[in-house]
């Protein structure tokens, strides 16, 4: 796992991390991914605090954010990003098990860029992750100040 990548995956469930990386690996995107396991770690990474004091100045090209997280939950992380001058331009994709309407409304209200419900069916899941990765990390032009593509 690369310490500094263009995709920041915020996910507490190891199996989901495994499956997500598995899916991204099919398009050779796995090594573009940095994984943090709770909201606090995510904020530390973004704000270059704690263990992440030495990370490059550039922001990730996209943030894949789970909502149910230990310590600081996903919506709080999203709110913090949108309220911070340094972070507010980062594209954020919510990636969650839940189809709950109130989560969707809250996320879009806070300015999320996309909301994806993880399909139960693995094929569909892999396809969804692959398309997300390709779109946000490859096709989409990230805002200025984001990490450049490798090579």
């Amino acid at each position: 796992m690369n310490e500094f990548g263009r995709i920041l995956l915020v996910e507490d469930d190891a199996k989901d991390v495994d499956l997500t990386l598995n899916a991204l690996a099919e398009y050779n995107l796995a090594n573009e991914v940095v994984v943090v396991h709770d909201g606090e770690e995510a904020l530390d990474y973004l704000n270059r605090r704690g263990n992440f004091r030495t990370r490059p100045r550039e922001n990730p090209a996209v943030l894949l954010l789970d909502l149910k997280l230990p310590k600081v939950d996903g919506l709080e992380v999203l709110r913090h990003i949108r309220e911070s001058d340094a972070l507010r331009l980062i594209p954020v994709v919510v990636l969650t098990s839940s189809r709950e309407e109130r989560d969707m409304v809250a996320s879009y209200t806070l300015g999320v860029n996309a909301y994806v419900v993880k399909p139960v069916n693995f094929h569909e899941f892999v396809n969804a992750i692959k398309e997300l990765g390709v779109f946000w990390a490859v096709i989409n032009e990230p805002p200025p100040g984001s990490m450049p593509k490798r090579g």
Partner: protein
Amino acid sequence: MISPRRILMYALALVGVASAVALTLAAELVGFRKLEVPLILFVLAAAVWYGGFGPGIVAIAAGIASIAYLFTEPRFSFYIDRADVGYFVVFVLFAALIGWFALRRRRIEQELRNARDELEARHANLLDVTHDAIFVRGFDGGITYWNRGAQELFGWTPVQAVGRNANELMLTVFPRPIEDILDELLRTGRWEGELGKTRADGRELVVASRWSLQRDHHQQAAAILETNNDITERKAAEARIRKLNADLELRTHELEASNDELAAEVAMRLRYANLLELANDAIFVRAWDGTITYWNRGAQELLGWTPEQACSQKAQELLHTVFPASRDEVQQELLCVGRWEGELIQTAANGRQVIFATRWSLQCDAAGQPSAVLEANDDITERKRAEERIQKLNLDVERRTLELEASNKELEAFAYSVSHDLRAPLRHVAAYSELLQKQAASVLDERCKRYVENLVDSAKKMGMLIDDLLAFSRIGRAETRTTLVSLADLAREVVRDMERETDGRDVEWRIGELPEVHGDRSMLRLALANLLANALKFTRPRAQTRIEIGSRETPSGEFVVSVRDNGVGFDMRYVDKLFGVFQRLHSGETFEGTGIGLATVQRIVTRHGGRAWAEGAVDAGATFYFSLPKP
């Protein structure tokens, strides 16, 4: 007794005679002779006239003696010559005649005088006897007569009064100019009127005065006789009476006025009292010391005491009043603003505690001092109890609501948790099963491959179950967004969606007249979709499928929508189970499904104020109905 006047008369007679003799002698010296007889006769006449019989005799005697002694020969002797006797006789006779005439004349004169004196005395007495004050005054005002009544009335004696000017003496005050009065007196001979006069001692009098004019024999006005009656007392009495009358009149007016006022007040009080009697409120008046002075019928009915029992009792002691605030505060407010309102607890005659909504009004006397309090009491005991009951009910409802809200929150949290946490491991099972299927395909035999397929299948099915269940629970929790919805449009929309999944089947959709209703469009769409999907599912064995959607109106103002199919139907014995969650009348192998569709329909319809039911028979098709209120 011989009076000195009489002796004087005799002396004068003698002196007269002597004077006559002396005069004669004196005359003889100058040549006049024989004057003795006429002179002595003259003296005789005078003596008789003034002195009467006695002095006359003395004068004759003295005369004869004088003549005999001095004037007849021989002189200076009383001897009378014979020749002279005749002379003396004639002389005596002549003297006697003269004396007799004089005496007679004197007698008549005396009698006349006596008669007049008597008459005058009698008159004077009469005038003196009367109590009227009578006086006579000349036209110049000088008083000539003053009777005893005048003395008594005015205080001056006749001696003091006579000769004085009457008007100046008594400071007469005339009612009108004196000229007018005199004018009337001269014209008519009399005048009457009231005069003010002042007594000798200064006291002022009022007299009723009558004047009579006296004329002399030439008909000239000579004197005025004034008769005065003292009417000072009468006038004073009259004045007092007049004043009394005036006072009386005034007082009468006042009394009449106050009588009128009293009558008005009595009428008003009666009217008020009657009105107060009519009131159902317990109304009573208590004096400032608390003594009850009025007690109406309402008070009697609510508290039990009759007016006779209650009046003159102290309100506090009678009613055991319980105040909401301290009594001083209540009193203070009453004195400040003149009224007080609040709730009191009074104890009735039978011991029952009565809660009153009470209104007090302060009454003040003319001096502004508080005199009484009018209390109007409305029995609110029942209302208070009802209020308490309602409050208790409200509390219950509130508590129930809180409980329900809490349990709803729990449910929501539960559903949220299911949505997140239950799906994740499920996804993992499915994902790793598929990874296994893919990567271990070469090492797995057919049986193991089927196991893995079943794993994947079950995980997928459980995912569907969870999704349906969450959707179902969302319907109960979600807020409805009510708009006017055309069920006809909705039905056509759903049918269009369904037609994609009916490839190869012969399905005849019949959409009849459908109403517009008020409701949440997405929920109603879901209900309709579930019913149509249901119909499509259970008609699958039919070569030709017919699904009819229709509606009718009920007399009670509802729309009833029906979905009829020609499918496999159901046994009416199990109709109750149709709308239950996870209740299925067919095995999953025959007809796939989670058993939540109809439960969802029922929940949506219920939330719209309607109900859902079904009719059917095994192999004879089924009809599902739902009702919705008319907009």
